[in-house]
């Protein structure tokens, strides 16, 4: 067992414990803080598993932006969550245990690629080609296709350029959708919950038509 493996196992266990904590807590503020910790832990795991670019993104997104967005939503909505009904929770537990057991059984298949094994199909198919095309390695004198050392950037922007274009468009669309949902003027409805919502909708519609 190397140090790397021990760190990996410890971090993964902490991640699972944080997830259990998130599932059990009802105070949404505490849940938000725990989900920030969860992101930070997963970013650390990504560093241990050599995915520095991913870790970078996860740290900035999870600990920074997601937390701010969740806090903003909490400010606009409720701070405390109710538990589901007992029947609901029991049903969910049955589903989860059955599915989790089935997945666990599936991992015991001898064909399942072991962690860190360099001979698995995932390692032998296209990745070596990407690594070879990028920068001349040691003694090889083959022509270079892309001259930059960070293979992740190469694959992201060049080999999978269409894919990344699609992702960028998704982010653009999500931004526009949030703007449409929350950006326009808020209609007059700052009152107690439990009021008859149907009576208010017509008034809202009239107010919306005036804008």
């Amino acid at each position, binding site marked *: 067992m190397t140090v790397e493996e021990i760190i990996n196992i410890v971090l993964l266990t902490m991640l699972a414990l944080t997830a259990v904590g998130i599932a059990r807590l009802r105070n949404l503020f505490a849940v938000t803080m725990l989900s920030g910790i969860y992101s930070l832990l997963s970013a650390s795991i990504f560093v241990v598993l050599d995915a520095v670019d991913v870790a*970078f993104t996860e740290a900035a997104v999870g600990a920074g932006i997601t937390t701010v967005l969740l806090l903003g939503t909490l400010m606009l909505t409720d701070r405390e969550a109710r538990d589901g009904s007992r029947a609901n929770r029991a049903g969910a537990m049955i589903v989860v245990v059955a599915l989790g057991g089935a997945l666990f059984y599936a991992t015991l298949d001898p064909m399942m690629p072991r962690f860190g094994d360099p001979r698995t199909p995932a390692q032998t198919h296209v990745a070596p080609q990407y690594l070879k095309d990028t920068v001349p390695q040691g003694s090889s004198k083959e022509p270079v296709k892309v001259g930059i050392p960070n293979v992740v950037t190469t694959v992201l922007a060049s080999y999978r350029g269409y894919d990344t274009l699609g992702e960028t468009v998704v982010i*653009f669309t999500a931004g526009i959708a949030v703007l449409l949902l929350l950006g326009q003027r808020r209609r007059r409805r700052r009152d107690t919950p439990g009021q008859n919502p149907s009576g208010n909708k017509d008034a809202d519609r009239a107010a919306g038509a005036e804008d």
Partner: protein
Amino acid sequence: MDHHFVIRVVGKLLIPLVLLFALYVQFHGDYGPGGGFQAGVIFAAGFILYGLIYGLDTLRRVFPPWLVRLLVAFGVLIYAGTGIASMILGSKYLDYSVLGPTAAKGQHYGILIVEFGVGMTVASAMVLIFYSFAGRGRQTGEDFGEIDSEDRRDRPDG
């Protein structure tokens, strides 16, 4: 406003460094870890931090909402436009090899330009989302930072 004194001073020191680091990550993504997605998120985090400390109005003056909306679309335009440019220069869509004197150089330029577009879209989309949420809180009469004061008042007992 006095009780945020430490945060304001530290923020003033930290935010330029955050933005500078984002630029480093953006344009050094070919040699080290980094790229458009990471840089965009860090850039947006810097602006959001500024907005949380100095208020939404100040941030709106620094980075006006019309500019944000423009940049969200402009980043996608840069990305898609690079593809068109490589088509005009006689290659396939998003094949950057023709953009430079050699194929490797062209790929390098193309990747930098495309990553810049990605970073622009990601950063401004995140700031746009922040504006939408924070502006919503403003209309209900609450400042974005003050979560505690509102805690007792806004509890529905349903």
